[in-house]
């Protein structure tokens, strides 16, 4: 599959169909892949796609396009040139692209989607736990096995046991939209129990829910990595940094962190694609997904809306109706 991916990218670049291909390449740390921007057709050799590719690349598509726009702000409109960004996209990435298109961040002709099937990616935190937190010196991925070399020796792990939580229950692991698809469609994941964790959590007593929220947010150091990596978070100026009004205090006050998180999470209402990027970059292991998934579930339950699964739909908060099916939440004295 990788050879076709490289060949496709090379042809696209040579044929000037795209200006850049955003994809994955070997990372500098063993058993990691990092995003890469390929502009030279000969560099297409560096592209890879496997179960170690974790980030949602839609983020970088938005970055490239908006930076290109910003750089041409002072040119006359007729002199501005659009950049076409090719992107290696699996299911969740295409959902983010669809969301960006729905929110009119760019037009369909500015992106070229190289769709790839996905069977889940490795959660680095699970991988690290599986080797007892020791340093990983080297490793490789073959078939359903991950071979890891640590100072204590070699260990063979089962790939299926290392997959990220969001991948295990993913209902959209094949591209929603694409210009070219590579490889055979991936087998569906087990999405029947998608909301099980959320339902269990909602059934806990109120005070327990609050202590869980408070405990998780206590860990957060407000590094904003979760926001920076999120393809749905693209505001040029985030509320977290606004000073007029100042929504979030800059001190170490626990409630400021709670409010920051609460607001960032709520911004994802009907906009999160459950790609798990924020969870994977969080250095403190905050359980963001427990809360994000609730917003996903509510958007579905209340408004039959699912982020980015259909180009023609709009996000939950971009639509309204005279009558909604849920009006019981309203207060009647």
């Amino acid at each position, binding site marked *: 599959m990788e050879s076709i991916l490289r060949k496709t990218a090379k042809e696209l670049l040579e044929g000037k169909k795209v200006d850049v291909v955003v994809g994955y390449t070997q990372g500098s740390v063993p058993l990691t892949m990092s995003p890469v921007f390929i502009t030279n057709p000969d560099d297409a050799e560096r592209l890879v796609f496997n179960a170690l590719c974790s980030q949602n690349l839609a983020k970088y598509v938005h970055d490239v396009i908006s930076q290109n726009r910003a750089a041409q702000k002072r040119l006359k409109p007729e002199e501005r040139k659009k950049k076409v960004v090719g992107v290696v996209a699996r299911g969740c990435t295409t959902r983010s692209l669809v969301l960006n298109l729905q929110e009119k961040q760019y037009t369909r002709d500015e992106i070229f989607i190289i769709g790839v099937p996905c069977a889940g990616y490795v959660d680095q935190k699970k991988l690290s736990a599986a080797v007892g937190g020791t340093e990983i010196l080297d490793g490789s991925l073959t078939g359903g096995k991950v071979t890891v070399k640590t100072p204590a020796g070699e260990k063979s792990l089962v790939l299926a046991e290392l997959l990220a939580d969001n991948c295990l229950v993913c209902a959209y692991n094949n591209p929603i939209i694409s210009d070219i698809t590579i490889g055979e469609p991936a087998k569906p994941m087990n999405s029947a129990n998608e909301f099980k964790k959320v339902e269990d959590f909602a059934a806990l007593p*109120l005070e327990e829910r609050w202590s869980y929220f408070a405990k998780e947010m206590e860990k957060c150091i407000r590094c904003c990595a979760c926001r920076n990596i999120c393809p749905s978070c693209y505001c040029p100026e985030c509320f977290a940094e606004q000073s007029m009004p100042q929504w979030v205090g800059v001190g170490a006050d626990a409630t400021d962190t709670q409010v920051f998180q609460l*607001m960032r999470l709520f911004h994802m209402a009907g906009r999160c694609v459950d790609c798990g990027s924020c969870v994977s970059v969080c250095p403190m292991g905050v359980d963001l997904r427990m809360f994000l998934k609730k917003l996903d579930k*509510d958007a579905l339950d209340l408004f039959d809306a699912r982020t980015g699964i259909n180009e023609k739909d709009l996000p939950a908060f971009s*639509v309204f109706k005279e009558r909604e099916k849920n009006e019981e*939440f*309203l207060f009647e*004295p």
Partner: protein
Amino acid sequence: MENNAEWEPKIVAIVCNWCTYAGADLAGISRIQYPPNARIIRVPCTGRINPFFVVKALQEGADGVLVSGCHPGECHYISGNLSARRKFAMLKSFLNYIGIESDRALFTWVSASEGERFAKVIKGATEKVRALGPAQKLVKKI
């Protein structure tokens, strides 16, 4: 404030200019009695109310937040309250999910002719928040 004997609920009522605020006016003109616990903030339309307003009010010490605007179909800007209804349905559910009592955030409609209803809403909201006691969660201690 923490002393329960003297504690009175503090409610921030964010209301739209065209219906609920006028409803409050009518309640006043008609000399209808209602509890003095609500601090009214007038905004052009419920569509103007950022869900952050609610969260921020709770953080800065409100015991409850009430949001009220025109009935569906009567919004001065046609659809402001319809999109607001979606936001607040999810906000209320989310606040409850993370463990904040759902009666701390209340949403309703009061039209300009419903002075009577406005008084009832304030009374009802005050009672609900009083039953919960002073807000403890998310509150910034300064």
